[in-house]
């Protein structure tokens, strides 16, 4: 382990992690704000530091198609995209899990058009949340690097063998320079076993992949994929535990910050939790019993761990970075409410949508949300509050 952290742009750290993982094939198409990741990867290949094929495909649809082909042929496969690029992959995103191709993809999260906007929110990943991918959200630079290494281990685990998306907030995380501890190749190799696919296009043992699912088999094929995705949570937790042994850094599928005795818990994902922690510290200094529960694992949804983390709270303020048009709740709030519905004692759940299309999320926003979440009747509001909207 490098003794000292080095200052490094988070996108570069992600690329370095892909190199340390010795990826075999990268197929990618440039889109802001993912570009620094793929630029640096192509440099690493050009300089011979990463022995991989870099396929400069002509679209994201072909990026994901090539990744599926590459993974099916037994190669450790990586791609990265954002926003419209993810949207253009849509059809293939739904196929990769059922074909059991463990492609790892970093999404530098960016708002979906229209209007066209290159800045951060979670509308890209939320629009494909049902595709069947394992989905992780990173909060900071170190976590982005660590989660990249973990992503290959989790996705390629024979019990999982599913594609995985690692979400990092576009610009507000991807383009920040942060102090990062870089592991060595040997350390990563000791943690990450070689890729041994459960199904493979192999001349010596020919199989057919991607057959027609008739009414007699389609349901079972979908169920098999859902079973694998559901079961992957255990593998994620195991991988986190193993990671701690190797690298000393501890990760959980659901992360709590000063939430153990909190009356009001702010629920969120991604890099805004860094800002929220500062706000929580300030509010705690004023005697406010407030904390944060952050979902690091989004798919499969860690229901039990989440419930355990929020069980004692009076008020839950669920923060969404995406609007589900025509529905009065954001996607995270919708799910949280449904998971808690059957519980006898439920917190007051209110929903806040903010930080869309790169609008800044500030400490003041968390102060405001905390106040609103405590108000009588907060749990009965008919719809989310759009924080900071100009009417």
């Amino acid at each position: 382990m490098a003794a000292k952290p080095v200052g490094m742009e988070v996108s570069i750290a992600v690329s370095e992690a892909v190199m340390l993982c010795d990826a075999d094939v990268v197929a990618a198409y440039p889109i802001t704000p993912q570009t620094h990741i793929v630029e640096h990867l192509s440099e690493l290949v050009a300089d011979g530091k990463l022995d991989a094929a870099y396929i400069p495909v002509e679209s994201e649809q072909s990026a994901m198609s090539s990744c599926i082909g590459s993974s099916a042929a037994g190669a450790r496969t990586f791609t990265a995209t954002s926003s419209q690029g993810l949207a253009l992959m849509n059809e293939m995103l739904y196929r990769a899990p059922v074909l059991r191709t463990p492609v790892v993809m970093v999404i530098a999260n960016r708002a979906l058009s229209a209007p066209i906007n290159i800045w951060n929110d979670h509308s890209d990943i939320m629009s494909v949340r049902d595709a069947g991918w394992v989905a992780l959200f990173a909060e900071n630079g170190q976590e982005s690097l660590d989660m990249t290494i973990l992503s290959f281990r989790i996705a390629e685990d024979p019990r999982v063998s599913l594609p995985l998306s690692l979400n990092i907030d576009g610009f507000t995380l991807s383009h920040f320079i942060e102090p990062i501890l870089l592991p060595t190749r040997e350390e990563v190799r000791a943690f990450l076993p070689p890729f041994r696919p459960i199904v493979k296009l192999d001349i010596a043992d020919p199989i057919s992949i991607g057959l027609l699912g008739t009414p007699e088999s389609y349901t079972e094929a979908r169920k098999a994929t859902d079973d694998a995705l559901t079961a992957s949570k255990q593998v994620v937790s195991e991988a986190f535990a193993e990671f701690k042994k190797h690298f000393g850094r501890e990760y959980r599928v659901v992360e709590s910050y000063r939430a153990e005795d909190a009356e009001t818990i702010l629920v969120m994902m991604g890099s805004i939790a860094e800002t929220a922690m500062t706000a929580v510290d300030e509010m705690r200094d004023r005697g406010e019993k407030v904390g944060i529960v952050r979902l690091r694992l989004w798919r499969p949804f860690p229901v039990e761990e989440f419930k355990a983390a929020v069980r004692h709270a009076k008020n839950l303020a669920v923060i969404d970075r995406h609007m589900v048009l025509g529905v009065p709740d954001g996607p995270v709030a919708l799910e949280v409410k449904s998971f808690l519905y059957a519980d006898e004692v439920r917190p007051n759940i209110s929903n806040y949508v903010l930080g869309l299309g790169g609008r800044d999320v500030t400490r003041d926003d968390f102060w405001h949300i905390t106040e609103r979440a405590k108000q009588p009747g907060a749990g009965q509001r008919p719809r989310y509050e759009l924080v900071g909207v100009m009417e």
Partner: protein
Amino acid sequence: MRAAETPFEKVTAKTFPKGPDALASGHRACQGCGEVLALRLILKALGTDVIAVSATGCMEVCTAPFPQSAWRMPWIHVAFENAAAVASGVESAVQTLRRKGRGPDRRIPVIAIAGDGGTADIGIQALSGALERGHEDFIYVCLDNEAYMNTGIQRSSETPFGANTTTSPSGLKSKGQSTWKKDMPAIAAAHGVPYVATATPAFHLDLMSKIRRAAAIHGPAYIHVYSSCPTGWRLKPELAVTIGKLAVNTRIFPLYEVLDGRYVLNRRVEKPVPVADYIRLQGRFKHLKDEDIAVIQDRVNQEYERVEKLAQAFPVEVAQAG
């Protein structure tokens, strides 16, 4: 090595591959399907030491309903428009794993197979990207039956002028398809790939030899295969070979290769059969009048002359069977 000089093993009556077909029997293609005939011959020429990628379409549906598969080599189907992109990924993976000592230490051709819609329409972008990137062991085969047959005979950009399809119907104000076939071999050749060819299962040894040459050549190869469809063309099933021969002998579908950018006319048609003889066998053209057929005849004459002149302009010494 230049494509024209690359040695390959030609298929002749004497060297015709023996043993079981690489595409198993029992698939669900229609009686008299020219497309599955072409596919069978292509795979027979290649054997099972290849990886095959299918686009969605007739050939995918009829050969691979779970839990059955007719493919005796590793095979993958992902989607309709992306066979070239999937094959790009497979090819890059195979090359990389070979280099890194984790795969077989020999060339393994990766063959992508799609219909005319999956090639000339929805798949043209993925195909263009794959051809341009210069994948080493990449063969792309377009099985052209001139419409979207799998979804029920809708027109594509490969549907010939005058053909009746379910989305280019003939009527009081329509003669059927109003446009001429998109020239996919020329589009493929414009990418500067080492090898482009046209073929038909009606000239089966020519088709199989071209596939062998495509596999031997270093770099992307594109083969456009005329594949009759009894269902969509309203053609008697027993005429699959007859109609393919007529397509060539009327000069409608000239057999040629483009080696390193140079055209080679494989079969000079000295005394062409009238186009009408081809058209009158097919129900999809039955609404055409003699003057409509004359228009098609003119176009066929022009197009054949163009290919002939391209071949004459830059003659090329072609490597024969090695």
